């Protein structure tokens, strides 16, 4: 559809009510959305693995022995706050205010770092108690699922820092705006995945 847009701005082949084609123009956003959907499938597979193996404790520790719900609630709060602050950054970007946008991005990064720090603390605590990934099928799938999400957040933070440098050097050019919008989708998507993690892994784990 972007192709048709490029080739002929004057000749319009589509129907009158197809406004999306004419004004959309950014195939990058659709492509990135499809990437996110494929990422969603990766997480779906990991959730399925956890669903199948999550009950195989191998006479080892069960979720009730390991999980600390207040800590998970704190972690969830961090990620949710980082989501809303990234939204504020996008609003500032729409108004063209570079300074306050960068400030909100810093806040987002700090909340993201806090999330990662709490998660690493939790992992270290589990491993210290002998609940290593090798201990049981439950722990293998737990570390894989939560660890994959944590890795995504890590790369999101790297991306965030890179974009902040890009914006400080080149300003809010169209390319940077597009990149920031892609990261926005990525960041909110990770928050959506985390909803699944805290519900199916932590809360359901405590109910088992």
């Amino acid at each position, binding site marked *: *559809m*972007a192709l048709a*847009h*490029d080739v002929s*701005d004057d000749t319009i082949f589509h129907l009158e009510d*197809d406004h*999306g*084609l004419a*004004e*959309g*123009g*950014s*195939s990058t*956003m*659709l492509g990135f*959305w499809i990437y996110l*959907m494929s990422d*969603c*499938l990766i997480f*779906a*597979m990991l*959730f*399925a*693995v956890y*669903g*199948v193996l999550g009950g195989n404790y191998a006479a080892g520790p069960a979720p009730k022995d390991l999980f600390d*719900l*207040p800590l*998970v*609630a704190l972690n*969830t*709060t961090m990620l*949710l706050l980082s*989501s*809303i602050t990234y*939204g*504020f950054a996008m*609003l500032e*970007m*729409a*108004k*063209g205010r570079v300074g306050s946008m960068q400030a909100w991005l810093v806040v987002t990064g700090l909340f993201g770092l806090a999330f990662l720090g709490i998660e690493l603390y939790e992992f270290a605590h589990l491993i210290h108690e002998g609940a290593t990934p090798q201990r049981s099928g439950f722990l293998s799938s737990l570390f894989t699922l939560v660890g994959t999400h944590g890795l995504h957040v890590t790369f999101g933070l790297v991306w965030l820092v890179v974009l902040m440098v890009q914006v400080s050097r080149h300003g*809010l*050019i*169209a390319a940077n*705006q597009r990149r920031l*919008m892609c990261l926005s*989708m990525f960041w*909110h*998507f990770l*928050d*959506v995945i985390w*909803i*699944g993690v805290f*519900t*199916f892994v932590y*809360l*359901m784990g*405590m*109910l088992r």
Partner: protein
Amino acid sequence: MSAGHHADTKEHGHADHGVDHGSLRGYLTGFGLSVVLTAIPFALVMSNALGNQMASAIAIMAFAVVQIVVHMVFFLHMNTRSESGWTMMALIFTLILVVIALTGSLWVMYHLNINMMPGHDMSQMP
């Protein structure tokens, strides 16, 4: 994507180029709903308010589904119009795959586990 489009994006910043940045009200609404939809399931599990594990499990799953929809609408700005509906099509396709993979895996493996139980009486199987 044409250069003219880029210039347009830079000048107007919002609303005119078909990309939804959302609004402050939208983000705050989504955030408020998310806080409530997160707090209730945590409270349900931590206080065991329902007193029934199955009821609690169903409740927290329902809250998760609602919260995912809230995030999709208020943070990811999902709607049937963006990209002429192709984002919605991709999402629906993904959801179908996810449902097949999850239910298929859980269903098959559950029955495998049941049949592998020691002492299971195979003579009663059809």
